[in-house]
């Protein structure tokens, strides 16, 4: 048992404790804060699992963006009437017992997996040469399983459309009501002036470097979205109205470029979403850049919510 094992064990205990506090906390605000901490701890866990791309994504989207969303919701819900329904203790105990059984069953199944489980890692690394990439995760996302990534972009767009559909009829194509502070304090304004230039550079770099090292479109796009949201929350800029053409084009750019590249593969390579030999990396990098822009726009708009007021003409 190396010292790393004790560090991992400590991390696991911390994760479970914070996770339990998000479930059992009395107030929603405490639960939301605990969730943000939980997300960051999980990112460390992913680093220990040698999955750096996932760690970046979890920290950015799982901890950061989801946390923002939940904290904003908790702030709005403070004005709601409290719900006095609570399930009775026997029901809760029975449910807890069943859930504990499920957890134990899963844990047992995982421990029973043989030491040497079958793997696709060698195949993935061998074929990476054909794509010209250095990051195997990018290879899986944009080459081997590109169809999944393309469809997932459409999933994001649909979720955004669903969020937008919740606007009142007369506020359609208006401005999202992302208004967390009546008058933002000076610290927030200061951060919103200092961070975005740095953040934009980091975001673009992260997308660029993702071809050969951990990173990529999702991580870079999330950072760009976060910078944009910071500027909007600090009231340095207004949220765009959702009907604007440039916004809509930004949303669609990533999947459209991806789709076009896929269809081009029908002509120039041997199939849909296939890349011409030798040109795979330029194709993939172009797709990743377009996707970064789209992901930034989609994630920011998802966090901004449905439009609340008619657009100012």
């Amino acid at each position, binding site marked *: 048992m190396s010292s790393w094992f004790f560090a991992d064990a400590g991390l696991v205990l911390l994760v479970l404790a914070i996770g339990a506090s998000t479930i059992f906390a009395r107030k929603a605000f405490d639960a939301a804060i605990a969730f943000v901490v939980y997300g960051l701890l999980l990112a460390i866990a992913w680093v220990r699992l040698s999955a750096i791309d996932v760690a970046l994504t979890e920290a950015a989207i799982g901890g950061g963006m989801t946390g923002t969303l939940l904290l904003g919701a908790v702030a709005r819900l403070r004005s709601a009437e409290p719900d006095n329904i609570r399930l009775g203790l026997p029901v809760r105990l029975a449910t807890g017992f069943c859930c504990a059984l499920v957890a134990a069953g899963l844990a047992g199944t995982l421990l029973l997996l043989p030491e040497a489980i079958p793997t696709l890692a060698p195949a993935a690394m061998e074929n990476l040469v054909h794509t010209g990439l250095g990051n195997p995760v990018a290879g899986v996302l944009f080459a081997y399983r590109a169809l999944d990534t*393309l469809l*997932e972009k459409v999933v994001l767009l649909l979720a955004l459309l*669903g969020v*937008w559909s919740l606007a009142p*009829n007369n506020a359609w194509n208006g401005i999202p009501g992302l208004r967390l502070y009546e008058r933002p304090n000076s610290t927030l304004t200061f951060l919103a002036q200092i961070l975005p230039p740095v953040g934009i550079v980091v975001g673009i770099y992260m997308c660029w470097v993702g071809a050969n090292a951990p990173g990529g479109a999702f991580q870079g796009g999330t950072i760009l979205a976060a910078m944009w949201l910071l500027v909007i929350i600090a009231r340095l800029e207004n949220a765009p109205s959702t009907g604007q053409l440039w916004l809509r084009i930004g949303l669609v750019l990533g999947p459209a470029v991806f*789709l076009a590249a896929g269809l081009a593969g029908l002509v120039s390579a041997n199939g*849909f979403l296939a890349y011409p030999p030798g040109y795979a990396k330029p194709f993939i990098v172009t797709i990743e850049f377009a996707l970064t822009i789209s992901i930034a726009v989609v994630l920011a708009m998802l966090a901004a919510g449905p439009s609340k007021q008619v657009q100012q003409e």
Partner: protein
Amino acid sequence: MPDATTSGGILLVFAIVFPVAGVLLSLVVGGRQVERIALIILPCNLILASAIFFDLWRSGSQLIYIVGGWQPPLGITLRADGLSAAMMVTTAVVICAVGVFAHADFDTRAQPFETRAPFVFWVLLMAIGCAMNMIFLGGDLFTLYVALELLTFAAVPLVCLDGRAETIQAALRYLLFALLGSILYLAGTALLYGSYATLDIVLLSQRLRVETATLVAAVLMTVGLFAKTALFPLHIWLPPAHAGAPASASAVLSAIVVKGSFFLVVRLWFGVMPGLLGFTGAQLVGGLGAGAIIFGSVVALRQKRLKLLIAYSTVAQIGYLFLMFPLAFDSVSSQLQSSGALTGGMLLAMSHATAKAAMFMAAGLIYAALGHDRIAELGGAARAIPMTVFAFAIGGVCLIGLPPSGGFLAKWLLLDAAIATGQWSWAMVLLVGGLFTAGYVFIVVAGALGSPHEPLKLRVAVPKYQEAAALTLALLSLLLGFVALGPIDVLQVRPGAMMAALR
């Protein structure tokens, strides 16, 4: 021998790409044109689905497309077998009919600017078409997960499209159940990948061993899919969601969307792990189905509102679909056989899709015409809007299972299987269920045929083309029984069929 892309395989790609392109284009081009885009994409979808069906029928073998040229297990394959093709055609037909029907309610050119509900409706309709095609054609369990999420996000906003508080509650509950279902499904795929290093359906079926991890994965995925299909007792989200949505949306939700997760249950158990279910498991699934039939039918009989009655009828009809599990189980080989019971179940899914869509459309028209949908006060409707009531009645005939409807043929195949395997209890359930269905259909139709207390004044003139859309679907469900004369062998074109022929 690894799969290779077949000549018709490119059709599979187009079936996915066209609706995606439609969605992307709609978001940019803007609201007023979106209906036009949909009215091009939806018929193209029907043409593609029919082309795939005919190619399959003619050649007798699957269509395959290997995406990106990467062979599984590393890459993803699209596969169209008999079940896929039949469901694709049914889905495409229903969605086209809904498209025609919905023009009156969601006309995008009524206003000179983009309006919320029509824009959202048409884009989501195309997205549902895309998601369903992906579910029918996907050959990899993780791709199917993404397709399931696509379907959920396309369906949930349709429930609360009118913006009332009750429908938003219904949508939220639907979303939570659907998300629970997807995450359990995903947990199962993690265990399967850990055991076999592939999620490709054909490869999994070849590599499958009976061990703990596989069993746990199967249970997790099935429970998740049951939650999404609203199988009793995980059905509580369905009635408020389907009854609260606008009529065109209810038609799509009940007829098409629930069939997506059902199709995945069939793929999982008949395709990947036929030998894993065991006799007890099959009886358990059948028991849940029977519970759904009894519960759904009894509650439907007690409903005062037409749309809720039809929604509970969906809960009951979903139970029928799962009866095919104990009936397809062959105790000799201890496997699920892809035989008459499977054909019956899929035919039941197809006829329910057309009939239920027709019934929801008719209910929507009745509401629009009368201003309410209280069953006790439907008197005079038959005289005022005869085509609509007739469409409802014909749809009901198909659900009851009278000849020559698709429902009759499907139940006949299931009864055949029940008698052949000596499982009389399921035969009884089928027959009793038919009686219940007859009960609630009769209540509605008799109510509509009665005379009103005071002379009936129609609120709005119901457009003839809407009635025609409902009636067409109802007649289709009625005539579906005639597939016995021809294309029914298409349903037998399965990946296993070729392997069996080679042995």
